[in-house]
């Protein structure tokens, strides 16, 4: 099977880069959304909950198309980004990361919300009586206790990003070196005469990558749980 071809290496590198940045950039928003959903009450909360979970239930193509409408050069957000900051996201790997982030967000928030709900609030009270303010308490007690859930959320979103196809191809198309991630590359190969063998190789690579991510996270989660005394 080895060595990998340049085309395969390019797709792997791109997929990892897209997944890494999509997960990294959505992490603070994921924690923020989990906090809003688990700890606060406000009008329109169920609407926010629904919006966050929407990518789980609607066709990825729809997400990609909505991103295209919003973030395209003439779209309300994309137009502003382009005119004011000179940033273009469509047809770039950053756009692919954005599509992957939106698709992985509900999985990330779900895991983090569950872990936040499981945090014993009496420990937070204890921290307050010991002189830690609200934010200090969140940083020094709540976040460490949430760590296994945060890790789970990150891995789920990462895996989801590696596999993202529908929203990506709709939003940022299929550009080698920019937006042709592993799934897009597999799709391209299956559309090419004599591409079957190459497609199969990429499929195996995708499975191996996903397995490595899962095993790594299992190992990390076990270490974290031991630290927390469960």
């Amino acid at each position: 099977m080895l060595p990998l071809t340049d085309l395969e290496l390019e797709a792997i590198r791109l997929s990892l880069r897209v997944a890494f940045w999509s997960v990294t950039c959505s992490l603070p928003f994921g924690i923020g959304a989990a906090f809003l959903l688990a700890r606060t009450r406000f009008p329109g909360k169920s609407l926010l909950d629904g919006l966050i979970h929407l990518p789980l239930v609607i066709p990825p193509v729809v997400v990609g198309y909505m991103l295209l409408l919003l973030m395209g050069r003439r779209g309300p957000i994309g137009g502003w980004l382009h005119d004011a900051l000179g940033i273009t996201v469509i047809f770039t790997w950053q756009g692919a990361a954005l599509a992957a982030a939106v698709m992985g967000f509900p999985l990330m928030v779900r895991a983090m919300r569950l872990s936040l709900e499981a945090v014993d609030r009496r420990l937070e009270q204890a921290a307050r009586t010991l002189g830690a303010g609200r934010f200090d308490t969140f940083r020094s007690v709540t976040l460490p206790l949430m760590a296994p859930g945060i890790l789970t959320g990150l891995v789920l979103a990462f895996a989801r990003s590696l596999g993202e196809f529908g929203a990506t191809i709709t939003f940022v198309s299929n550009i080698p070196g920019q937006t042709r991630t592993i799934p897009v590359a597999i799709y391209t190969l299956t559309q090419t005469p004599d591409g079957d063998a190459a497609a199969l190789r990429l499929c195996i690579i995708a499975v191996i990558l996903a397995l490595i991510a899962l095993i790594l996270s299992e190992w990390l989660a076990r270490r974290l749980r031991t630290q927390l005394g469960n």
Partner: protein
Amino acid sequence: MLTLRANHRLGDFHLKLDISVPSRGVTALFGRSGAGKSSVVNLLAGLLQPDDGYVKVAGTVLFDSANGLSVPPEQRRLGYVFQEGRLFPHLSVRGNLLFGHRRIASAERRIGVDDVVALLDIGPLLDRRPRDLSGGEKQRVAIGRALLANPKLLLMDEPLASLDAARKNEIIPFIEKLRDGFGIPIVYVTHDLNEIVRLADRVVLMSNGASVFTGSVEELVSRLDMAEVMDHPEAEAVIAAHVADHDDAFGLTRLVLPGAELQVRRMALAPGAPVRVRIRARDVAVALSAPTGISVLNVLPVRIHDIVDRREQCLLRLALDDTTGPFLWAGITARSRHDLDLRAGNRVYALIKAVAVEGSSGGAEPETAAAIR
């Protein structure tokens, strides 16, 4: 002073408090479970906001609904030892101890880590995780953690309730050292009268969300009308005393109390050490004349103050001296009362069959000497 006025509704439960006690020594909050004791502590700590109220501790107003003032818990500087410890599972014992210590200005760190570690004897535990500690060890670490935040007042919410009797006896001396060694006032929640007799300088008795009594332990125990509220139906007397001297030949210690002397089993306390004696009504008999030829050591001349009829028993309130001084209870049958024709004002002799002594001293090692016959 510690002043707490609060009106608060928690579902069906109505908290209506007006408490004012000196903020020094140990103030015990006593009462059955569900009386609202923990709510009082949470109000002080700022973990519970009353609908309206006023909280002032050692000259600082912490809550005043009239002026919209509420100091957040982290700025109140009140240490809190929770019933369940509430140690942070993600930190080592050392990390737990330093949690509050790190968050105060170094100029305010009067209490040092080494002192606390030595006092609570937790040196060997420092690198362990809370999950590897026994219940008693957890509670000691929790006390140390609260102490190292250098609080102006220490709140202890039934710190011994989750421990078995042996563990309790392991922790109580540490609390005594804390009280005597660091001079931090303590508010101590408990439903156990033994802990109160051993530790408390004053008691606030709670019932159904209200404080129904504030005063000394001795006075509280003498109040038969509080027996129901205290969940302690047995009449007994708690009297402050001090050690006079020891009789080594017979292994006895002589205690002096207002208007009387008692001999108890030899105690390891220096002369002058304050103690509290507990004498149950059923351990006291009375005689019309000074008896001779009996084995009971403690026979005190007393005056019958009044007689309380109580179910199948008659309780005699016996004054040790002619003033309002301390009282003993004697539990006798209605038959005996009739046969001896006992009336208020009679002078009789109290035969004390058993005395429990609880050290309430500073410094010296307290102990319990039971059942001297």
